[in-house]
């Protein structure tokens, strides 16, 4: 009779152990595939991949999944199997800031260097000359 709670708690303990372990990837580094493979695989599935980085031994991907949902997912680096999927919240500041950085960069590329652009706010006439001493 008394063994029941013991077995129960033991099995719970074991369960939580496996649950914890499942978050990380433990593929040996020698078997890892390059992240380009993952990018190609995901893009073929309809993802828009924004960034792939390594986190806890997994490839962590940020982007939009095949349903167009903004997501953060983790993949095993050797098998490229999905380990975790999370919806990215819209109010994630970092996300917006990254996008704004990208937009800044894009604007600079499209319109040329900031040094050659003319101001358009109507107050300043012509391009100011600037020096830092």
């Amino acid at each position, binding site marked *: 009779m008394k063994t029941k709670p013991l077995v129960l708690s033991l099995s719970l303990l074991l369960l939580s152990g496996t649950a914890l372990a499942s978050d990380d990837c433990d593929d040996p580094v020698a078997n890892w595939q390059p992240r380009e493979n993952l990018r190609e695989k995901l893009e073929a599935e309809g993802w828009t991949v924004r960034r792939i980085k390594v986190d806890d031994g997994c490839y962590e991907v940020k982007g939009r999944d095949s349903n167009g949902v903004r997501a953060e997912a983790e993949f095993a680096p050797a098998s490229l199997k999905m380990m975790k999927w999370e919806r990215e919240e819209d109010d994630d500041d970092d996300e917006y800031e990254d996008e*704004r950085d990208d937009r*800044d960069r894009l604007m600079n590329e499209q319109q040329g260097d*900031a040094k050659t*652009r003319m*101001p358009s*706010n109507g107050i*300043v006439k012509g*391009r*100011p000359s600037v*020096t830092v001493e």
Partner: protein
Amino acid sequence: MKKTLFALGLAIAVAMPAFAQAREVTFTTELQNYRGDGAYVVLYLTDASGTYQGTLWVAGEKSKYYKHLSGWARGSRLDPAEYDGLTGASITSGRTLKITLNLDDSLIDSGHEVRVDSAVEDMRDIRADVVAPLTTEGSGKPVSGRGYVRSLTYDLQ
């Protein structure tokens, strides 16, 4: 005779606005020697009541940090059209930024003020670091800042 007078009048009328419009102004912003990264600094114009009128220069290239220049951010609503073509690198401690630009004559001696907001990473944001009325009389006279800016001087040409 009448014709030459008319031509003269026309010539003056055409030339006057161009003559009156452009006024070259040099703004010299000297920073304090503080311990910290490069400062984001914005120079902008307000009317006498402090209402935003226009951006003169933004030192600092990443627009994601512009919200820390809070007085300016509120006034310009961070509309890229307000600062497009008017941005450059941030300024490091102890250095001096000199900007020479052409301003409409009507902005001088008309109650407008030059304001400077400044911010440094992991340090306080300073709204209205400097407030200086834009007048002929004030030309060449340094105005002290209360934050990262030691002084602001403008020279009207």
